[in-house]
């Protein structure tokens, strides 16, 4: 891979005394689908708007395609944006909206016409060109916004929570369409979202942000399988935590005393965020199993079912482990012939040391 399309280093942004971004370092690779994920107010939108040129960072540097963006206004940057509200010009038709940026570049009329037609077809809005834009549905507005930005062939397409205004069904459909579109055009997409599922299903890589800083940058699998902290683990999916104390380290392994599970020796690699400050062990609900009949597991522990949530294909159990106050969640697939346990029943919980993560 050649040089990253976007390079950020030491980016700070202050609004008065409030620090919206703090020492952000980030490289985004050419052609990838990259997501900025975090709770509202974490600075992800500020970061996106800094890349677009709508916010001026208080400190740090920003390079796009190897060019410093210092002092380059939004209309001179090789980026285009799909806004959360889509920002479709209400007084223009679909075609006029899509042609807007091309006209600003003063391209010949014939070229504008063919490119607009192509772009409208690309997002599946053939025949909508002459429609007035204010009568469009949410999904259609979003397609117009995409076409309007992509017709300019930007180096980077920035998407600010583009799916948040759509209902669940349409959102899922647009997720797969967006992914396909990104593969087809090969442009780098940078997506801002607060929806972890959306980020996991669509992205090549994800940056998780909290409080103006980037907590972790990783592929979806790594983010889910090897979160670097309890906070990240909790934000991406569900995770059970057990108190843990590091006893000693020796070469490639670490000895820990884990609540309920007892003393264990784990490989250093399972301390995904480094050993320093680790005080808990995390385990995903699906990594625990409730054993039935003669089933056995690498390790087993006795527990009592305290709550059962039936989801059709899955059952979520809250169980009490010995020596632990809060219950632990276990998800089980409802395969054929498997009976559902009731509240108060005893359960044998199977687990393995390799599925534990040592976290801070």
């Amino acid at each position: 891979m050649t040089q990253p399309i976007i390079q950020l280093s030491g980016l700070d942004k202050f609004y008065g005394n409030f620090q919206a971004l703090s020492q952000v370092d980030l490289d985004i690779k050419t052609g990838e689908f990259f997501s900025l994920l975090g709770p509202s107010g974490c600075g992800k939108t500020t970061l996106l708007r800094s890349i677009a040129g709508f916010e001026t960072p208080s400190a740090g540097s920003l390079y796009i395609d190897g060019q410093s963006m210092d002092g380059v206004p939004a209309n001179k940057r090789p980026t285009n944006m799909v806004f959360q509200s889509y920002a479709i010009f209400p007084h223009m038709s679909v075609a006029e909206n899509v042609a807007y940026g091309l006209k600003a570049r003063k391209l010949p009329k014939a070229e504008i016409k063919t490119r607009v037609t192509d772009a409208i077809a690309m997002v599946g809005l053939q025949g909508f060109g002459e429609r007035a834009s204010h009568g469009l549905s949410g999904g259609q507005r979003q397609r117009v916004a995409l076409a309007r930005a992509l017709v300019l062939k930007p180096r980077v397409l920035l998407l600010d929570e583009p799916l948040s205004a759509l209902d669940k069904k349409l959102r899922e459909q647009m997720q797969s369409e967006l992914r396909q579109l990104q593969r087809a055009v090969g442009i780098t997409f940078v997506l801002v979202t607060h929806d972890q599922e959306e980020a996991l299903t669509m992205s090549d890589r994800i940056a998780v942000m909290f409080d103006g800083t980037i907590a972790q940058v990783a592929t979806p699998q790594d983010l889910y399988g090897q979160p670097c902290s309890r906070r990240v683990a909790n934000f991406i999916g569900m995770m059970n935590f057990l108190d843990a104390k590091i006893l000693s380290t020796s070469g490639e392994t670490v000895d820990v005393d884990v609540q309920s599970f007892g003393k264990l020796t784990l490989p250093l690699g399972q301390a995904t965020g480094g050993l320093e400050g680790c005080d808990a062990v995390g385990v995903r609900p699906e990594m625990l199993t409730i054993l039935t009949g003669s089933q056995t597991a690498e390790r087993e522990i006795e527990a009592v079912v305290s709550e059962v949530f039936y989801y059709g294909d899955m059952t979520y159990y809250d169980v009490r482990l010995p020596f632990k106050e809060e219950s632990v969640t276990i998800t089980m697939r409802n395969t054929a012939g498997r009976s559902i346990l009731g509240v108060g029943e005893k359960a044998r919980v199977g687990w393995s040391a390799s599925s534990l993560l040592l976290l801070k």
Partner: protein
Amino acid sequence: MLRKGHIFKWYIGIFLVFLYAPAILLPVFAFNDSSIVSFPLKGFTTKWFAVLQTNETLHVAVGNSLMIAVTTALFSTLFGVLAARASTRFVFPARRSIMGFIMLPMVLPEIIIGVSLLVVIIQMGFELSLWSIILGHILICTPFCIAILSSAFMNLDQSLEEASFDLGQTRWNTFWLVIIPLVMPGIVASLLIAFTISLDEFIIAFFLAGTEPTLPVYIWGQLRFPAKLPSLMALGTILLVLSISLLLVADYFRRRGIRKTGIENTGGFL
């Protein structure tokens, strides 16, 4: 419940009669075939309208008023656009105080504005002219224009502007291609409101009129002569019809603007 509703409706009915009493009587007396403005009515005539056609002084006054109203509408809308845009889009030091100060003429008694402008003009040694009235009218119309234009600018989604900029347009072109077309209905409404206010304004005009009268100043002078009253009623009727037509046009543009930007129609005029 039912009875209470009835009381309410009765009240509203009586209130509307009270509110509309002068406006209804105006055309009634305008078409009344009697040189005394009082009941009982005598018969139907249009002669009072005919009288207006041959009145030279009236025509001069109308000409003056039209010139003042048009100039006032243009300038106060221009000032209004600048102020409304600044206050809705930008955060700047002392914004609230500055806006409060600019809106002040809305609550200041007009006599204060008339008196203070008169003092300045006399002290500076200028002559009273139609221009002194225009200045006073711009001062009192601008707040109304700002009120109308602010809502037009506020309804404007800021990301539209950013989108235009993001797509490669300059700020200047964005203003003309995106912002102005979307607030155009507000601008038209502002022009019409300022025009209507200026056309009808008497107190300031009375203080600042030199030798050339405006229409309300002319009317004021005629109110003393009972013989002139019926034709004044006819004049008032014409003005009323004109004002209402202008307002309907202004409201039409406001609604069209709302439809265009796809925002739900909730409020009324002003």
